[in-house]
């Protein structure tokens, strides 16, 4: 079994990289623990597929090391690593039956035939492929094909990790949900490390215990879905996770506190001290629309803001408003009174996040 560690890993496709932009993956450290269900989340082009291919061995990293437990496996080909990978588009061997497809990885390592059969049947049972075993694989539907692809990964008992590269892209929406649940089930049953690449936050948070968010070739946060939501470690995580994303204000540190234009925003001493300690002028304040307090009436804590528009989304409403000259969004409950033209809002201190150079300031009172 394996713990997968990436040590000072970086990768570039350029022969002669000049700037950080030439790197598909910028130098990073990361550990995937044995038996975890992980998601690797990020927009397209952030380097998540590159990382997956480096772990599986389809790519050799240009810098740093990939370590399985205590072995540096950089030079090992995918064949020599105990890893399976499922691709975006189902790969099946057209001319073979479903049974032969599932048996293929076993037969490739010369498994005796009397061991192949029970193993294939076991995996077929789990994936609900048993009735199809005798069919030619090329006649299957897209989701059945993708299940066969997954089955080829599961059938090998030496596999310590399965990597999924956006495996549900070609699957119908209602089947996506079923397959995802199947995956979770398999994960619980087999105690296999699973790394699931996706650009869909819902897919990531329903599948994974911990999500790694990737942005511009770096993992900017690695945490539970709840951590990503409540304490985004990077402005990108705030923006990318949640719908709508986090509100950000460019602020100045003054003697009175944090100021946005001529408005002073009250924050705790600790946050203020951290902001003051920094010499950077890229300081931002972030708060999620869900955590902005919207008051029914004017009061001393609240700021008066102009409402721009109101969007009814069924069980909740999204209010867009002007805070100074920044547009912000706040989420209102169904039964909450709907402000007209003017609204009274405040930012609860515990949900305010200070970002210096895009990274969150960790304050230990939380």
């Amino acid at each position: 079994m394996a713990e997968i560690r990436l040590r000072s890993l970086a990768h570039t496709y350029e022969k002669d990289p000049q700037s950080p932009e030439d790197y598909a993956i910028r130098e990073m450290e990361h550990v995937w623990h044995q038996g975890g269900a992980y998601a690797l989340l990020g927009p397209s082009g952030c380097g998540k597929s590159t990382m997956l291919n480096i772990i599986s061995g389809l790519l050799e990293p240009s810098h740093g090391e990939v370590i399985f437990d205590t072995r540096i496996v950089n030079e090992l080909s995918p064949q020599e690593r105990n890893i399976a990978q499922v691709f975006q588009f189902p790969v099946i061997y057209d001319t073979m039956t479903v049974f032969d497809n599932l048996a293929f990885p076993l037969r490739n390592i010369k498994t005796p035939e009397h061991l192949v059969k029970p193993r294939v049947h076991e995996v077929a049972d789990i994936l609900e492929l048993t009735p199809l075993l005798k069919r030619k694989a090329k006649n299957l539907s897209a989701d059945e094909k993708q299940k066969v692809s997954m089955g080829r990964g599961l059938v090998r008992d030496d596999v310590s990790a399965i990597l999924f590269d956006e495996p549900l892209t070609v699957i119908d929406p209602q089947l996506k949900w079923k397959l995802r649940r199947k995956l979770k089930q398999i994960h619980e049953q087999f105690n296999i490390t699973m790394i699931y690449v996706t650009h869909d936050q819902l897919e990531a948070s329903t599948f994974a215990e911990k999500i790694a968010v990737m942005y511009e070739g770096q993992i900017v946060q690695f945490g539970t879905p709840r951590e990503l939501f409540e304490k985004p470690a990077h402005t990108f995580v705030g923006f990318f996770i949640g719908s709508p994303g986090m509100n950000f204000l460019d602020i100045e540190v003054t003697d009175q506190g944090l100021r946005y234009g001529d408005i002073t925003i009250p924050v705790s001493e600790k946050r203020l001290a951290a902001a003051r300690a920094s010499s950077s002028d890229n300081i931002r304040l972030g708060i999620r629309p869900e955590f902005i307090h919207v008051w029914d009436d004017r009061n001393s804590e609240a700021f008066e803001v102009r409402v721009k528009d109101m969007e009814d989304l069924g069980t909740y409403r999204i209010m867009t408003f002007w805070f100074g000259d920044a547009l912000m969004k706040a989420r209102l409950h169904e039964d909450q009174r709907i402000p007209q033209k003017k609204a009274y809002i405040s930012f609860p201190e515990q949900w305010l996040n200070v970002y210096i150079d895009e990274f969150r300031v960790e304050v230990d009172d939380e």
Partner: protein
Amino acid sequence: MSQSTITNTQARSEAPEVTSSSGLTRAVSRQKGESVGRNRFLLSIYLLFTLLPIYWLINMSLKSNREILSVFSLWPQALTFDSYIKILTDPSWYMGYVNSLTYVAMNMTISILVALPAAYAFSRFKFIGDKHLFFWLLTNLMAPPAVFLLPYFQLYYTVGLFDTHIAVALAHCLFNIPLAVWILEGFMSSVPKEVDETAYIDGYSFPAFFIKIFIPMIRSGIGVTLFFLFMFSWVELLLARTLTATNAQPIGAIMTRTSTASGVDWSTLAAAGVLTIVPGILVVYFVRNHIAKGFALGRT
């Protein structure tokens, strides 16, 4: 700094599975290195096989006949361009190339012009007898030119087209039009039908749509088709020779003049041969990027 670099390199070159100070082992692949080198070697042998006869032809064309017959040498000992000069300055020689290129060009034009609408019909419509017609077309691809030798001779003689370029161009239509229809149909079928429908909704007439929208979309298919048309018309000799006498005689027929009672004029024959390869090289150079796709006849 330099110290650590050295240790690092040493670590990298260590033997398999040796534990380093950090408690890590570096796994070494048991697999042999990629067989790229072996592949290159085998491919080179094949390329050598392909190029040697051509090289030998060039070698011969740059020697004088006396040298060819007196000493065996791998390259010309006394380099001479006499044969090339002779061919390129004597109209009875170079007109052979002009004739060949003329009927090839005519054939390419005719074939592509009639094949385009026909291929479109086959790729888009069902009509009475379409399948039989298509099969009949393909049978013409299978017809041995030798079978048509005599009837062609008589036919073109009767209609007064004997020894004209157009006669050869028309005769080559026998196999080139079916070939063009076949290749183009493959390319056209890969263009979604929605393209046509959108154009008609936008108010295009059929000819306007076909010329302004459809043809540009299958540009590379047309390029590849022209390549094939050129190739098969350029290399064919049996029909071309039979249907011409003097005015439209192809270079292939003129080359037989090098063989006389007093022996073969090897040098001139070789030079004429080398010159027949040149147009082919030019054409293949122009379509090199489409050729891989084209050989799958648009059906990949």
